[in-house]
């Protein structure tokens, strides 16, 4: 027995270039995040805000990794074992990432509130750097400032690519990166607060950062569950319904042999797939007509792939 294996999907050549560029930026992001995590990890000491930033940074690896996993599986053709292909693998990575993000956010919020209530005060000693005595708070400040700059730049570079490629993992990554400056500012305020003798500034900053993490995590959780449940396609931010369903429906209904048409689509990563039900006016050359409809569906938009045309008597 053999299965009806879905046809492989190929991106348009120009999109392929953007994908390659996005892939490079994702790798650069991972490298940049690792250097930031090293800088913050080495300097954080007992600061709660720095700990929160470190965890936020480690979590911002997730959408980058999910995107790269997606790119890898995108090129893998459907086979006997997985006749619908491997695209949905990235959704699992994404859900796992969202759960982690959300969970850590809740943990961090609890941790910083507990620290605040226990009035735990961050003690930051001075150390020697190249023979100069420095209060380590200033070194922490430098690490935080360093941690803010690359994500903001990379996020700005990712966003247009995410929109062009309709890649939600990349879009999430861009949003996270752009949101990073907020927690950076909170972290800077926390450390300056410590310097000015306001011990609570640190746990307050940590709480703020964890609320930011919880918000991101919640947003991602909702999006990935919606995709796993085959929600109707939306725009890249998951807000407005994607117009493609309606447009395809109109295009099919406009064929002169079609009396009426209804389209049902779902997102498979960046690709849109699903069924189109058509009511033919008569049954003359039905197979030829269906092939025409298939051609229309597959060329109508670059994201449409493997649309099933189903002839029905009535809708």
């Amino acid at each position, binding site marked *: 027995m053999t299965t009806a294996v879905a046809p492989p999907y190929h991106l348009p050549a120009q999109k392929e270039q953007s994908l390659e560029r996005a892939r490079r930026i994702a790798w650069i992001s991972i490298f940049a995040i690792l250097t930031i995590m090293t800088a913050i990890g080495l300097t954080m000491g007992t600061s709660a805000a720095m700990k929160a930033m470190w965890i936020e940074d480690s979590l911002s690896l997730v959408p980058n990794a999910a995107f790269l996993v997606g790119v890898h599986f995108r090129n893998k053709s459907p086979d006997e074992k997985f006749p619908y292909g491997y695209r949905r693998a990235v959704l699992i990575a994404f859900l796992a990432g969202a759960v982690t993000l959300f969970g850590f956010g809740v943990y961090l919020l609890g941790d910083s509130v507990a620290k605040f209530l226990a009035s735990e005060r961050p003690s930051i000693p*001075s150390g020697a750097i190249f023979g100069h005595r420095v209060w380590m708070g200033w070194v922490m400040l430098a690490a935080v400032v360093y941690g803010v700059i690359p994500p903001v730049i990379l996020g700005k570079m990712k966003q247009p690519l995410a929109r062009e490629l309709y890649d939600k993992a990349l879009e999430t990554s861009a949003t996270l990166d752009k949101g990073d400056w907020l927690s950076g500012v909170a972290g800077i305020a926390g450390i300056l607060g410590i310097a*000015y003798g306001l*011990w609570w500034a640190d746990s307050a900053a940590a709480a703020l950062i964890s609320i930011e993490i919880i918000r991101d995590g919640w947003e991602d959780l909702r999006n990935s569950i919606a995709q796993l449940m085959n929600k109707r396609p939306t725009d890249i931010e998951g807000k407005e319904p994607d117009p493609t369903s309606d447009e395809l429906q109109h295009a099919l209904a406009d064929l002169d042999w079609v009396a009426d048409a209804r389209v049902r689509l779902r997102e498979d990563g960046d690709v849109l797939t699903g069924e189109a039900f058509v009511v033919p006016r008569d049954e003359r050359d039905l197979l030829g007509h269906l092939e025409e409809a298939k051609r229309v569906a597959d060329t109508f938009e670059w994201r449409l792939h493997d649309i099933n045309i189903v002839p029905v008597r009535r809708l």
Partner: protein
Amino acid sequence: MRPLIVSILAVATACSSLPRDPEATLERVRRGSLRVGLIENPPWVVRAGSEPQGAEPELVRRLAASLGARPQWFWGGEEQHMQALEHFELDLVIGGLDDRDPWKKKAGFTRPYFEERVLVGVRQAAPFPASLNGLTVAVKAGGEVAGLLRKKDANPDPVQHLDSAANAVAAPEWQIEHLGFVPTRFELLKRNHVMVTPPGENAWLRTLGDFLYEQRGEIRGLLEREAR
């Protein structure tokens, strides 16, 4: 350009007066009172006579002099002193403490100001051992080092005074040389010595840390003087 220079100057002057203490410990010390918790731990803190002896009380006396303060000494145990620090009833705790201390999150620890490597030492004339396996090593009784020796398959010989050691001895590097032994490459433990302040008193912690850094060349001499 002018505003830029002004703001850089402003930041630079702000930096020298920062960090500040939430409980103003440094200011209080400068006004004359320095409350020091002592934990007996020779040769770091030695209980003898009315004034405490040892390397760390000597360092504290120097620091107090430089700040125009007079130390008040309080003998006690670690638990009790750390709890007093948490409530800002002491300004400093000393007692040969190292950075493995479980109170690390509840109090202010300086960066390690002295690295003490505990090694195995042998007699000058004796051949260097190839391994610790089965080697009989004199070690101060009742300390963790005996256990570390046993873990490395050496044969610890717990003694009251290391002066009586015959062939091999396990002790801090400075003491091995002081006892007339030669240190080997066998390291059993590294103690990174610190002093402890109340939590979050960062100006005071910084002043203390900077002072200990200045004194880093003196520590070994103080320890050897104490051992004599």
